[in-house]
């Protein structure tokens, strides 16, 4: 049992992206992520994720720094451990045990955990590891232990370019999350968003991208044109967004490998609010010609467009269900903004939002079970979720201004942006910041960005 998986060494083929972006992401060779079979099915100790448990009962986990045979190796090990601990703490579902309480040294724990030492400080799980730089590469070995049963739940060694140590830490974080909670994590992901700077009437809006923990931040466009509402392709290598390039507001595609961007199609008028289909073959968007806005789908291969809605009213913000069979969107066809679900081929639209207020920016959970939205009611904005049939509405967060939810790939966490009002007629005090919140409505956190930030979109898992 103890050695069951350490032989499953995986080489993560890590390659840099060309051109403008130049950020490391995982290549195809990493798809076979090491997985230890756990007896009895899903999660360690039979824990099943439960939206009520986390608030009161995060899992206490000990994360001694990964051991290393040299100062450089120890530094690498420490860096990786800190990223993992930060991820797990930020999820709200884990509570890293205070390091000062550790009895056993990291080196000794990496060799053989003395479980009594970890039990007495309250750790339910223990992560040990070893970091070994090998030239410009690094070998990172880690083991996840259940302290109570003294069982190893996972043991994996990764070899990768040393520069990509952060991604290794995120992959390990996801393995820990999945082994302990029985569902996939979301740490090896990125967020693309709009970085905003300058006075509000002359705002500079740039595409920007970062890891989900805010690290590896890059600007993707230079601010010479306004960019809005970026959304990831399911392969995480392409982004659809709205650009005011040449003063023509149109949906564009941005290729993260090449750094190139191109207009999606030759629509008349404005195109906006793009989203990829789950199979990545289509972009659904809104096209405003004259006074109306209707929903269209564009086939990426042929660039042929097909109109899905018609008639009066503004139909915007379409988003596919994860099985691709339905589209939820926002329309004021009935008088004010509400949410509607229709067949992916168009037709059969039915209203699903019936609460108090206006509803907007619907996004379908990757799990299929929920639709997140913005609600404007009584002069306040809120982020909420409801089932796809409109039942079970819950508001997760409320305030003066917030909108634009986007799900983590496991459907457990939402990112959105929150605004603070201007205090005076010069706009002082206005701010826009990214936030994350658990779909249970707890653990709201701000994501630190270099500038004001709006329109976050969460990538799929990069290495799955």
């Amino acid at each position, binding site marked *: 049992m103890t050695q069951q998986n350490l032989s499953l060494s995986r080489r993560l083929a890590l390659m840099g992206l060309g051109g403008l972006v130049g950020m490391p992401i995982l290549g195809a060779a990493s798809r076979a992520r090491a997985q230890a079979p756990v007896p009895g099915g899903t999660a360690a100790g039979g824990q099943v994720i439960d939206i009520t448990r986390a608030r009161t009962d995060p899992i206490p986990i000990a994360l001694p720094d990964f051991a290393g045979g040299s100062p450089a190796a120890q530094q690498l090990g420490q860096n990786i451990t800190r990223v993992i601990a930060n991820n797990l703490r930020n999820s709200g579902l884990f509570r890293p045990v205070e390091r000062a309480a550790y009895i056993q040294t990291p080196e000794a724990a990496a060799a053989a955990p003395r479980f009594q030492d970890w039990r007495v400080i309250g750790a339910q799980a223990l992560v040990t590891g070893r970091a070994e730089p090998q030239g410009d590469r690094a070998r990172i070995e880690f083991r996840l232990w259940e302290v109570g049963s003294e069982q190893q739940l996972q043991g994996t060694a990764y070899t990768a370019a040393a520069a990509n140590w952060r991604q290794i830490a995120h992959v390990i974080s996801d393995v820990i999350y999945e082994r302990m909670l029985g569902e996939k994590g979301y740490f090896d992901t990125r967020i693309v968003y709009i970085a905003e700077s300058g006075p509000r009437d002359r705002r500079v809006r740039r595409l920007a991208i970062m890891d989900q923990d805010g690290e590896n931040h890059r600007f993707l466009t230079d601010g010479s044109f306004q960019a809005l509402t970026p959304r990831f392709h399911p392969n995480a290598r392409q982004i659809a967004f709205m650009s005011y390039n040449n003063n023509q507001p149109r949906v564009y595609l941005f290729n993260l490998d090449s750094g190139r961007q191109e207009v999606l199609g030759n629509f008349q008028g404005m195109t906006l609010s793009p989203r990829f289909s789950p199979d990545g073959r289509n972009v659904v968007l809104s096209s405003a010609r004259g006074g109306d806005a209707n929903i269209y789908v564009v086939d990426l291969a042929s660039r042929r467009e097909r109109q899905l809605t018609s008639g009066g009213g503004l139909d915007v913000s379409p988003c596919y269900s994860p099985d691709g069979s339905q589209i939820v969107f926002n329309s004021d066809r009935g008088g004010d903004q509400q949410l509607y679900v229709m067949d992916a081929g168009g037709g059969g639209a039915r209203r699903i939002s019936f609460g108090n207020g206006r509803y907007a920016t619907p996004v379908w959970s990757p799990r299929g079970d929920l639709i997140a939205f913005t609600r404007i009611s009584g002069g306040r904005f809120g982020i909420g979720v409801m089932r796809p049939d409109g039942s079970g509405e819950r508001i997760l967060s409320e305030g003066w201004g917030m909108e634009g939810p986007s799900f983590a790939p496991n459907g457990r966490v939402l990112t959105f942006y929150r605004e603070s009002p*201007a205090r005076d007629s010069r706009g002082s005090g*206005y701010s826009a910041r990214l936030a994350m919140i658990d779909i249970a409505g707890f653990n709201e956190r701000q994501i630190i960005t270099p500038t004001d930030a709006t*329109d976050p979109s969460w990538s799929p898992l990069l290495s799955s």
Partner: protein
Amino acid sequence: MQTKLLGALAAAALLTACASEDTSGAATGAGAAGGAGGMGGLGAGQIRPGSQEDLVANVGDRVFFDTDSSSVRADQRTTLERQAAWLAQYPQVQVVVEGHADERGTREYNLALGQRRASSARDVLVANGVSSGRLSVISYGKDRPAALGSSADAWAQNRRAVTVVR
């Protein structure tokens, strides 16, 4: 009643904004006037006929809308009629009608709403004899406010369609 008052306030500010450094909400909103043109090399009082400055100073470059509405209000229609007459006077001038929304909506919906407001204003211009070939529309949604505050007054100034000489 409140909105009518605001319209008057904004119109008054139009006349003074260029000459003063007033940073009150109304003056800032009116002074921001649409982007195109700018004062160029012209000093105060030297307004070139048929220019954006001419439109702003002598006609009025913008109309205002009610919350969530894109119907041109009766009290705003005369501004568009004056714009149409002004455009008839300068047949070489082409304009873009910019539609805007206040910050109390979601970005994507407000982009569509701004487009609908610009189209409404454009339709009135066309109905008053302006050739549609001289007009284009663009929406900036809530993303280019004229008034920078977060007050009801600022929102009323930001729900607008602005005619801008190209």
